[in-house]
């Protein structure tokens, strides 16, 4: 051990001056600080992604009040309201966390500019679907007096429900929505279509038109325990109605990268179409390996994100997707266009569906706050939910036309919304809408 004991002496003599050591110390400290900063998801009211400060006046917001309602003291101006946001800030789904953070921050900025309250955003990290982290985050927010939470991953795969319900804290989810299994849950509402279920009818009808010989359908999806069962049951029902059958049902871990075993098992069933229930980077990994698997089935995924496309590269040119997509090329209405312009200006990147949903959710919260204040009630989760139930329709980035903003209406029984959805194809990581649909049927085929 003698040579180890003398190590420090020789180390300093030969290689390290005090200046070098101080530099090294600073580097390690910076690394630790960076890790702590990312792990904690940033300070209260500060986005974890290092979002630049708002640039006031960058986009003309003068028509915002005309579209979404009046501002002023009766709409919460001058008040500070805590807004809890539970996102995938780290882990394989951190793309979502970052883009949702940007949408939320922009929404908060626009609400304030339109004469609404000052939302004090408190970000928490659920580490890409870690139910323990999700429940812990919700508990911390409830203990902090938060009355409304914006969540993702379907109430972080259901884990926040046992926390928010007894505390009577309202939660809106525009990331994963309610799914089938968390519908009709008190204090929990989805602001997107039920995924992937709501796409099944439209996709099956589109396949019948474009791939008339396709009969054998395989399903590859995240293993989310009992939440899988109603999805598969409904899929079988839809396929049977369209003269198709489910020939394989493969479950994979969230965040899986190696699909060699899954692809071998699916290949053995000789499917014509593979429907994937994969999100985050996972569809990118899947497609990258799928194109060299020797199969010729058409893959139809549950979403498109540029991040997953970056992983898959040219393999994504063989990928179709189906979900409640936010169209950047043809904005639904003038508010959508304003959002897209403002987002591009603020972040120097295109927004996506998730950014749009979280931006829109901030405005839904503002509308609820406005209604509660108009009745001289305190801002509590219970009062906010009652305000939602009394009038479940809200202004939306989705729908509408060139002159009128759209609306979304919550189903008071199911706690979800029926949004316009699309089927899209990809070329060079550019998505292109080829069909539109709702949860019942295909509405329009463009290609």
């Amino acid at each position: 051990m003698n040579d180890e004991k003398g190590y420090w002496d020789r180390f300093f003599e030969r290689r390290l001056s005090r200046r070098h050591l101080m530099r090294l110390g600073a580097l390690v400290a910076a690394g630790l600080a960076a890790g702590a900063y990312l792990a904690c998801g940033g300070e209260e009211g500060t986005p974890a992604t290092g979002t630049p400060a708002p640039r006031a006046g960058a986009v003309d917001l003068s028509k915002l009040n005309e579209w979404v309602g009046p501002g002023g003291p009766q709409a919460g101006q001058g008040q500070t309201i805590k807004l809890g946001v539970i996102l995938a800030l780290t882990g394989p789904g951190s793309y979502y966390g970052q883009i949702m953070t940007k949408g939320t921050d922009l929404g908060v900025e626009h609400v304030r500019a339109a004469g609404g309250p000052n939302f004090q955003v408190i970000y928490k990290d659920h580490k890409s679907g870690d139910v323990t982290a999700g429940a812990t985050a919700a508990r911390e927010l409830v203990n902090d007096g938060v009355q409304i939470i914006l969540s993702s991953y379907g109430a972080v795969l259901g884990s926040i429900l046992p926390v928010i319900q007894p505390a009577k804290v309202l939660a809106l989810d525009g990331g994963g929505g309610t799914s089938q299994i968390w519908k009709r849950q008190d204090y929990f509402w989805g602001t997107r279509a039920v995924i992937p279920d709501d796409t099944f009818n439209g996709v099956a009808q589109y396949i019948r038109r474009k791939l008339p010989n396709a009969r054998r359908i395989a399903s590859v999806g995240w293993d989310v325990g009992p939440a899988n069962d109603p999805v598969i049951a409904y899929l079988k029902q839809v396929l049977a109605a369209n003269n198709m059958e489910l020939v394989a049902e493969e479950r994979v871990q969230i965040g899986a990268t190696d699909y060699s075993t899954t692809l071998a098992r699916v290949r053995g069933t000789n499917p014509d179409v593979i429907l994937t229930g994969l999100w985050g980077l996972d569809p990118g990994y899947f497609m990258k390996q799928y194109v060299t698997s020797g199969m010729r089935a058409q893959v139809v995924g549950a979403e498109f994100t540029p991040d997953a496309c970056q992983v898959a590269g040219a393999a994504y040119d063989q990928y179709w997707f189906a979900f409640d997509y936010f169209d950047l090329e043809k904005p639904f209405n003038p508010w959508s266009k304003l959002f897209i312009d403002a987002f591009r200006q603020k972040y120097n990147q295109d927004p996506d569906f998730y950014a749009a949903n979280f931006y829109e959710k901030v405005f839904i919260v503002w509308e609820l706050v406005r209604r509660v204040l108009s009745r001289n009630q305190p801002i509590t989760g219970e009062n906010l939910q009652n305000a939602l139930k009394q009038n479940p329709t809200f202004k939306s980035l989705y729908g509408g036309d060139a002159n009128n903003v759209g609306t979304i209406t919550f189903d008071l029984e199911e706690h979800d919304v029926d949004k316009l959805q699309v089927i899209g194809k990809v070329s060079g990581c550019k998505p292109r809408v080829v069909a539109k649909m709702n949860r019942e049927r295909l509405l329009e085929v463009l290609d």
Partner: protein
Amino acid sequence: MDFRGELFPQLFTNGVINGSWYGVLGLGFALILTVTGRFHLAYAVTYTLAAYVAVALSQDVGIPLGIAFFLAVVVASLSGVMTEGVVYRPLAAGGGGLLGIFIASLGLTIVAENLIRLTWGAGSASRSLVGFPLRPFTVLGVTFTSLDMAAVFTAWFLVLALAFFLSYTPWGRIVNAVRVNPEMARVVGINTERVHWLVFAIGSALAGVFAVYAAMRFAAVPDMGLQQTLIAFVVAFMALGTRPVSVALTGLALGLVESLSGLFLSAQWAPVVVFGVLFVYLALRPVQLRLALRQVQRLVTA
């Protein structure tokens, strides 16, 4: 055709591909563990760093893929040496012990992962390494790619090269001497500090090679190293002895078991199978089985 009948050869091939990969990762980990006594969890850092360096050099700087590959392996090797020189050895000199080094290694892994997220922070920091002529081949109904073939050939070339190095070169014999009896090695004048650096350099280079393959096969992501390090640990732990071919065969066996479990189980159970094998091994390994397996391996590697 019988589903199982068609499935088996494909899963077997997948198992050979992944198992060869696991074998080399296990070999690097085992070499470091057995010669230096460091439980080098920061192997994950080396792995991840090599993948990102290859992507950055190839795609951001525009260096040809082959050169970027080589430089990434060099960086991986240096990163391992630096970890030993700057973190582990001073800790060991200060009486940090095995636990102290393990905790430092874990901390280093967390910090490095977050620094990578900050450095390549756009989106989820995922970067795919393109440029390898990726072609699928189908032979007797079994599909694999040119990248898979390259990885398997590289793996076994490295295993045999390391076996030759350790058995037939003076430096290899010195490494073996330090592994078997470090005190005696010091007494006879061997500089064990240099030997430690050498095995960190070699072990980390092995991780670097397959990190670059992983960036081509999947993508470079900040947390890509930990899962592979855990597999490397399982392989290193289960390998009977430290001879390169033995460790590589253990990795191959683990890959085959993991892949062939797909005959009966869905893919989400594959990680459970890997650690299940370790558990069964730890719980049930009788001395007789160990001796019998050692005899078999001696015959195979003779």
